[in-house]
């Protein structure tokens, strides 16, 4: 039984078909990368899985539950966490609080609990802080915990997004262009972090642009072009696939 399964998933925006009956399977414990030229619909796939857009057709199944029509916050609670291509942190909040927000779906104090500050609520707050610190440590950001998120450099903001996603104890982690805008040293650190996340038992699904990065880290690669899946296989297979080469380099004139 795959962890996540997309079955003929399609979404239309007016006349544009952004994702065109895509089938995709993610097995537990693997690192799957979704690649493709700009505008191929990669981020849209993430937005479909996380409930930001409802699919026009097709089904998305996660651990035998249909995700179609479920709200983003519900999907997060089921064990899927994500980052965004154009970093979406809570800029005015301190780094630590950003990660604490990520823990939201695994905690339950209500407004009244917060007002009365019962021992249970206090204990939960402590546990949230503990978890947030662990996640920051994992991503190497614990020394920046009191800074406002907006003041972090770009690469650290990307890592902070991953830390925030990790705080919800996800089983499936969606990373949208995690290496974008990073230099080669930062990328190297990132590869280590993602591998260690996988070694913790998580499944990683990532969208990337950087071929070298993708080929080095992925167990499997799927390729999207104009909303359609044109290839799916091991990194070496995909690299040799003539359709993929055509999509990236442009078709030869016959």
């Amino acid at each position, binding site marked *: 039984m795959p962890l996540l399964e997309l079955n003929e998933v399609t979404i239309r925006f007016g006349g544009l078909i952004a994702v065109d009956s895509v089938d995709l399977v993610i097995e537990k414990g693997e690192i799957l990368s979704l690649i493709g030229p700009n505008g191929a619909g990669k981020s849209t796939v993430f937005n479909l899985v996380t409930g930001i857009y409802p699919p026009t057709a097709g089904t998305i199944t996660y651990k035998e539950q249909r995700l179609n029509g479920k709200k983003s916050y519900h999907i997060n609670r089921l064990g899927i966490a994500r980052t965004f291509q154009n970093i979406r942190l809570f800029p005015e909040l301190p780094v630590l609080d950003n990660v604490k927000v990520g823990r939201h779906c695994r905690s339950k104090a209500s407004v009244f609990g917060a007002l009365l500050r019962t021992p249970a609520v206090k204990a939960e707050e402590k546990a949230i802080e503990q978890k947030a610190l662990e996640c920051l440590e994992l991503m190497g950001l614990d020394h920046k915990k009191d800074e406002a998120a907006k003041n972090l450099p770009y690469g650290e903001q990307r890592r902070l997004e991953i830390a*925030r996603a990790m705080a919800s104890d996800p089983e499936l982690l969606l990373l949208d262009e995690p290496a974008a805008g990073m230099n080669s040293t930062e990328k190297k650190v990132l590869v280590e972090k993602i591998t260690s996340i996988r070694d913790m038992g998580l499944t990683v699904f990532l969208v990337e642009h950087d071929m070298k990065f993708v080929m080095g880290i992925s167990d499997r690669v799927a390729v999207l072009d104009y909303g359609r899946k044109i290839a799916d296989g091991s990194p070496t297979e995909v690299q040799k696939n003539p359709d993929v080469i055509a999509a990236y380099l442009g078709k030869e004139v016959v």
Partner: protein
Amino acid sequence: MGLLDGLLPAYYESILITVGIYIILALGLNLITGVTGQLNLGHAAYMCIGAYTSAIMSMHYGMPFIVAILAGGLLAAAFGVVIGYPTLRLTGDYLAICTLGFGEILKSVLYNVPAVGGAMGLAGIPPKTTLTIVFIVMIIVIISMVRVESSRFGRALVAIREDEIAAECNGINATKYKLQMFSLGCFIAGIGGALWAHKIMVLQPRDFGFLKSIEILNMVVLGGLGSIPGTILGATVLTSIPEILRFSSEYRMLLYGALLVAMMIFRPHGLMGGVSFNSIAKRGMRWLKPGDKPDDKPGQKGMGG
């Protein structure tokens, strides 16, 4: 009870009561607009509901003051839910217009309902609001707000303000939280209104119009949207200064208008943007422990964004 009453000359006691009530009202609005970022241009409407409800409770049903206050708060909160449920799905400026529209509708209904006095208003409300009561309620509201701010609920609200989609993807049911926060803010406004009714003793619909909402908004904006100490400062300054300087109301509103523009341009995060009681406490600890270097400056982190 009554520890604080009669210690000061009546005039200053009256100013302090007014300041206290506005701090309560402004903290309710700060929760809605400052913390969660949902611009509410009809805060006075919920104050109005609390004021009328409590006044009727006291006058017609002879209820104890505490019951009248709570009834005012609860009915305001109920209206908050009824109005908030459909409108909070709207984005920023449309929500603002809806809240404004509701305020004006309420005013026009009150004008036309003889049972609550119509345009003449309600008169003869017993003067039960004392400085002690206002002070106690204010302290409870401040503590509650500080607790909410530092809870998972409070963080969720700020997350919604900063980026609603990211908040939803991090497990936050934004619609539910916005509604809870809105009704809590309205509850506080209702309580403020109840205290107000039993201070001024006469209620007229026109006292709860758009300009009253703007007056309260100004306090939050001056102090710093989202900052509890800032809101307290803003409410104190804007209530007491015009009172002491005896500004006529035209000049005061002229000043308020200019102030809103100037604050947005030059200091969008207010006088104390980003300052919370927690950050003040942390700073205080550093002063007490001279070994630590004060490496961050909480007073400046909210600037310029």
